[in-house]
């Protein structure tokens, strides 16, 4: 769908000539996010610098019934920031200011394009931090984190993004600019902030976020334990949690990932291990010391080949650099891969790891693993050669088998990456028809014309669901809301 010259000039009038991308080369680079499997270039990209501009952009798109796709840093893993139906992509990269830091109220208000880690950097000197830490945090934007309700290694102890969002300003698909929540905890009435976090742009465009800030813990201890196999490491994870500890992070990497990460980041994980656990404990010093000893003992009891502790901040930073850049380091293993984001109950980790090995063997594909073991949140990386259609077919098959296995064990089709175009078809595995239809109606309240990030989050083709017949958005605009 090509946009009319009228729409393009109306948008250019809002953001200026330097705030709009219309060239085919420029638009091409926006056709996918980190999930390069799904491609769809927008007809135009706009880069607003204020909430007022965003409001005006939505107004133009509503008037001309043009789809809107929001985009932060484009690091999403579900094909959320691509334009399957063309339209206008709104890139938030120029709305990246910190609007306010209010330490007395333990919060900050930021624009959506702000890079996650930059917020922590801005307050770290005063002893504070922003807890949600997706592995992409050195790049991904807080607006994107909010839209996907992102998790991260330290969410085991600190909770996911939604637990840290106090307030939101969004421009809805109805064109209104809403202020949901605020600095004060527990606003009266519906928890609209909770509803809007994770909406993946289907309600509207986030233009400001008020987030909780936490005071940095007194002590941090990072333990690296090597095991012969992922199964032994998985058993250790369950033992640590069962012992009553909640580590700040509890991460696992298998042999394939260890090799790629060592080559890509110089993290220096034990090269001969079948799996490593990265265990981070934080809190009051005495508690951290005691738990460190206990965790190390549990590792040894479960057959750890070695257990070491980061001696200083530099060593700790290097261990985390390896973990956080894992998805990029996969480029050393393969040119193409499917990165899954599924969940099983923690106690089922050994079962799913065995099952996964069997699936990889059956399809003849390498499945590398790096995941948040403490949450049972898996990130199997199915490697394939994208020049070979047969391999791609096998990779997709492995992917579906894995999801079904996770559901069969009582898990979920997504942990923290969101749904996007990638998982929409899988939602019926988890939700019934009434649940999904209700979600459709909810979406319609915010976006009656279905312009906001269409094709994402909810299944749109009956053929993709297992017998699910999606309802059309039923609310006429201006109905009873």
């Amino acid at each position, binding site marked *: 769908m090509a946009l009319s010259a009228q729409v393009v000039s109306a948008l250019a009038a809002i953001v200026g000539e330097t705030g709009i991308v219309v060239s085919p*080369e*420029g638009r091409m*680079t926006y056709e996918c996010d980190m999930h390069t499997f799904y491609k769809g270039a927008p007809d135009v990209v706009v880069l607003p610098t204020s909430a007022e501009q965003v409001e005006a952009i939505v107004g133009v798109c509503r008037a001309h019934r043009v789809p809107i796709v929001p985009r932060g840093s*484009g690091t999403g893993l579900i094909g959320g920031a691509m334009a399957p139906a063309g339209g206008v992509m709104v*890139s938030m990269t120029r709305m990246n200011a910190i609007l306010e830091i209010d330490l007395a109220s333990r919060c900050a208000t930021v624009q959506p394009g702000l890079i996650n880690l930059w917020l922590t950097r801005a307050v770290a000197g005063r002893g504070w931090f922003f807890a949600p830490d997706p592995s*992409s945090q*050195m790049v991904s934007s807080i607006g994107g984190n909010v839209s996907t309700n992102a998790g991260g290694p330290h969410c085991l102890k600190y909770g996911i993004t939604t637990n840290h969002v106090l307030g939101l300003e969004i421009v809805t698909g109805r064109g209104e600019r809403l202020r949901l929540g605020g600095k004060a905890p527990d606003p009266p009435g519906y928890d609209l902030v909770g509803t809007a976090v994770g909406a993946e742009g289907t309600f509207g465009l986030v233009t400001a976020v008020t987030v909780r800030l936490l005071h940095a813990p007194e002590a941090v201890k990072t333990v690296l334990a090597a095991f012969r196999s992922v199964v032994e490491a998985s058993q250790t994870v369950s033992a640590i949690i069962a012992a009553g500890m909640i580590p700040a992070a509890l991460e696992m990497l298998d042999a394939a990932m260890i090799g790629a990460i060592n080559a890509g980041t110089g993290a220096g994980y034990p090269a001969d291990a079948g799996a490593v656990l990265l265990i981070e404990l934080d809190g009051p010093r005495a508690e951290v010391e005691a738990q460190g000893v206990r965790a190390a003992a549990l590792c040894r009891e479960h057959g750890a080949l070695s257990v070491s502790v980061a001696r200083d901040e530099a060593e700790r930073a290097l261990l985390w650099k390896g973990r956080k850049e894992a998805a*990029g380091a996969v480029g050393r293993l393969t*040119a193409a891969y499917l990165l899954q984001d599924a969940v099983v109950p923690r106690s089922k980790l050994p079962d799913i790891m065995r099952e996964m090995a069997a699936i990889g063997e059956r399809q003849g594909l390498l499945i590398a693993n790096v995941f948040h073991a403490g949450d049972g949140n898996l990130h199997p990386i199915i490697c394939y050669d994208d020049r070979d259609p047969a391999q791609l077919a096998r990779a997709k098959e492995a992917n579906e088998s894995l999801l079904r296995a996770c559901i069969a064990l009582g898990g979920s089709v997504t942990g923290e990456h969101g749904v996007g175009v990638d998982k929409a078809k899988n939602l019926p595995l988890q939700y019934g028809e009434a649940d999904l239809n209700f979600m459709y109606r909810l979406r319609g309240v915010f976006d009656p014309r279905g312009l906001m990030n269409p094709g994402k989050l909810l299944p749109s083709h009956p053929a993709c669901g297992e017998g699910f017949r999606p309802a059309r958005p039923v609310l006429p605009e201006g109905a009873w809301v």
Partner: protein
Amino acid sequence: MPGGSQGEGRAGGLASAEGLAGLRACVHCGICLPQCPTYRVLGEEMDSPRGRLYLMRAVAEGRLDITDGYTRHLDLCLGCRACETACPAGVPFGRLLETARGDMERRRGRGRPGLRGLLLALFPHPDRVGALLALARLYRQVGLQRLVRARGWLARAPGLAAMDVLLDRLPAAVPVPEYLPGREPVRGRVGLLAGCVQRHLYPDVNRDTARLLSLAGWDVVTQARQGCCGALDLHAGRLGTFRRRARALTAAFPRDLDWVVTNAAGCGSAMREYGHWLPDGEAAALAGRTRDVSELLADADLPLRPLPLTVTYHDACHLAHGQRVRAEPRAMLRRIPGLRLVELADSDLCCGSAGIYNILEPEMAGRLAEMKVESIVETGATAVATGNPGCLMQIAAGLRRRGSAVEVVHPVTLLARAAGVGEP
């Protein structure tokens, strides 16, 4: 697709097996984005490393021709290679960019040379640079520069205006002896690259480098008749010319040297790439022997007097990203008694110099210079040290524009002062 006609619009080098392998290593994770100077300024995907790689891959795979738009986005890249430092997948961005520019250069062909062609015909020739500087000296002495600036005659030629600003510093020639014996006990023999720009605009840095190396026990050979390392041609995609210069420079140095030392990050980085572009023979061997001066002086035995200064350090891109040399220049500065080294925020973000980039892309270069100068002023340091002549000029010009008195020096200059062999 709009743009180039068949045969000249399609990629040659990028579509090679090596080019494709490099491009396919990118998994689109975006970790490079915040490290990229043009992305930091513009926030646009096509002016980020990930976006540029995406376009290069589209050209290599035949989905896109070498269009004017494509060329524009690759031209706007500074070639700082900060993305390589950031990349966990090991994408060789610098080489891919140079290969892509080689493809672009073939398409550009014999069009009008323009400012870019003029600069490439000038800088790789030390004698021409010398002649131009003589003219520039005259331009200043007769008051023409003042007149030109007062009347704003260069207002509509931002490239020339940028050049005019950079020419504020026109030092007198300082001779560097062809041979300087090392202090006993002699550790070995090194060659010193004089550099096309360095020898004319910062001749004192060359003199100080030779004196310090000698003091550290190295015999120093600095032939008068050494040419250009070819860095500018390499970055511009003129690969044939680059290879010719690389071979000539290699031949100019005696073969029995322990090291060939550079004090210009851009030159050292290009020379260390010789092995890739000229895999067989002497040039590759020279690449293996190339060292930045800080690598030889960081732990050398030097008698040093106190220098009570607060100094910050800017990582030249082609030192930090191109040669992965970060610790040594800092160590070199820290060993000076009394000198307090304070870290610079985003110290390895490009200052906008990038060879002839600041003359060709004055607007982007100016934005980056402003950002760099802002960070420098925030440190409260009274001097900023950096190991590349382009950065020295760019940062000095930026500080002057801001009316700042912060001194801009090569680390070698400070070490020479402390060792008592620098300028009085």
